């Protein structure tokens, strides 16, 4: 089984979010970039496929040279090889088109991407990729077992979960549940050393449309200070929620 893990290079959750160039660009100044958390669950699940079922695991990202430390981290965690499509990922459809090309050229049976990136939160790349490639697709996947080409997957739905059966080739929109938080791996020294020797192939993008463009960003209005209610006067909270906030 040949697996491709799609990785998004995203600002760490604790980053301050600011915009620059007249609020038209995200300000990366002082921001630490990491593997998108939803992608990391898929990467770890792929490591299990590699160790228990002899799978080959590649990682791919669409991004400039500045994303390479993040890709190297994925290699240090245990992926065998990496592909970087040298383009700015400004639109979900454009990114899906680039990844579709990588999948076609690499002949992957299974593609796992995160259900969404934590920066632009689009959540569209996995589904678009599956549709472009005419592969089966399971989103918000919280459990995945593969036997030959038979697939059993668990999907998170609103208010519960759903068990699905399908077959390879398959695209997964993954999240926590594929593996648990405690299963995530931190690269060790040996992994980091080995990652330096692994192939990181840079490919140029294919021509593709960008049907959406972010024109401008802004931040939520500054919130006023919290209104504190005395613990001995809980009734006041009920009043405020009814008369002031009008939510009950």
């Amino acid at each position, binding site marked *: 089984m040949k697996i491709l893990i799609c990785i998004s290079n995203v600002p760490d959750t604790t980053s301050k979010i600011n915009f620059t160039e007249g609020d038209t660009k995200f300000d990366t100044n002082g921001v630490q970039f990491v593997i998108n958390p939803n992608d990391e669950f898929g990467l770890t699940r792929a490591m299990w496929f590699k160790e228990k079922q002899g799978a080959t695991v590649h990682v791919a990202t669409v991004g400039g040279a500045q994303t390479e430390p993040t890709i190297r981290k994925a290699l240090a965690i245990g992926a065998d090889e990496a592909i970087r499509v040298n383009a700015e990922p400004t639109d979900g459809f454009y990114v899906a088109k680039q990844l579709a090309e990588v999948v076609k050229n690499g002949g992957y049976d299974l593609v796992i991407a995160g259900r969404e990136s934590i920066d632009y939160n689009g959540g569209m790349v996995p589904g678009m990729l599956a549709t472009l490639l005419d592969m089966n697709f399971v989103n918000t996947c919280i459990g995945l077992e593969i036997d030959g080409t038979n697939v059993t997957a668990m999907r998170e739905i609103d208010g519960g979960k759903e068990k699905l059966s399908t077959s390879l080739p398959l695209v997964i929109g993954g999240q926590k549940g594929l593996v648990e938080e405690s299963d995530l791996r931190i690269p060790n020294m040996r992994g980091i050393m080995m990652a330096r020797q692994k192939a990181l192939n840079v490919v140029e993008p294919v021509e593709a449309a960008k049907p959406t463009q972010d024109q401008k960003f802004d931040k939520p209005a500054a919130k006023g200070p919290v209104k504190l209610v005395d613990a001995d006067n809980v009734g006041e909270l009920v009043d405020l929620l009814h008369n002031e906030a009008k*939510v009950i």
Partner: protein
Amino acid sequence: MSVLVYTESFKGKFKKNAFEVVSYAYKVAQDLGTSVTAVTFNAENDAELGTYGVSKVLKIVDDQLATFNAKAYADALAQAAQAEGAKVIVLSTSADSKYLAPILATKLNAGFVPNVVAAPDSTSPFVVKRTAFSNKGFAHTEISSDIKVIGVSNNAFGVVENNTSANVESFSPSLSEGDFAVKSVEVDRVAGKVTIADADIVVSGGRGLKGPENWGMIEELADVLGAATACSKPVSDLGWRPHGEHVGQTGKPVASNLYIAVGISGAIQHLAGVSASKVKVVINNDPEAPFFKAADYGIVGDAFEVVPKLIEKLKEFKAQNA
């Protein structure tokens, strides 16, 4: 040319988000000088959609579609969009809508923008406001493709009545075997509870509750308010509560009208997932808990004393306002 809407239903009844996406679509249709066509799947009371601005219903009744199937639903919607010549398609941000929207957009060569929180900034060029950076920012995004797919954020636009008379027509999409290559084997849904996605109010508990045996008061508080229950990440990691209740960046997103956090300190990952809620209340014994900076109302106190009192006061309030 109409604006097309995917209206979600469960066991024949429309979900609240169906009325919200219709309300949104009506606004867009007015801006574009056209009308709203809704697509329904095995729904019972199609004419009800007229209340919120639907002029025409394409009613699909098909046993194959009794259980949600993303690819088949997307295929049906794409065919409806083509039949109507729809240029704008509106859906929600439910798990099902997020599953099918990218498939639908790709089939129609359409640009897709999810998490939209307001009526379009303009319709020529077509620009919508959406959340980004886990609710720490907004993007104003132009959709330049001929067909546009918009995912409306829960509780952002609200349900608006636009009394219209809905003309119901039956619609039979032609579905192929390939549409059902992913099969539903079993659906495991907690019965009789409000889901986090549909809830107006969410009551959430954290590690401050000390153990799963203390969740009774969270459930009772939720019960009084008709709210959904949720929990923080450590609580689900510890196995005190099911994973499906975990809200936050790597859990479920919350965009309720009221979010009540009990014994949750407010780690940045938690706040990222819940900050789209309109009004946030925090109950915590630590006045330094970061959640107090993000909340609108707060009580510094022991949850084991405050929550039972709050339940009692809410019951009194409900008795008076019944």
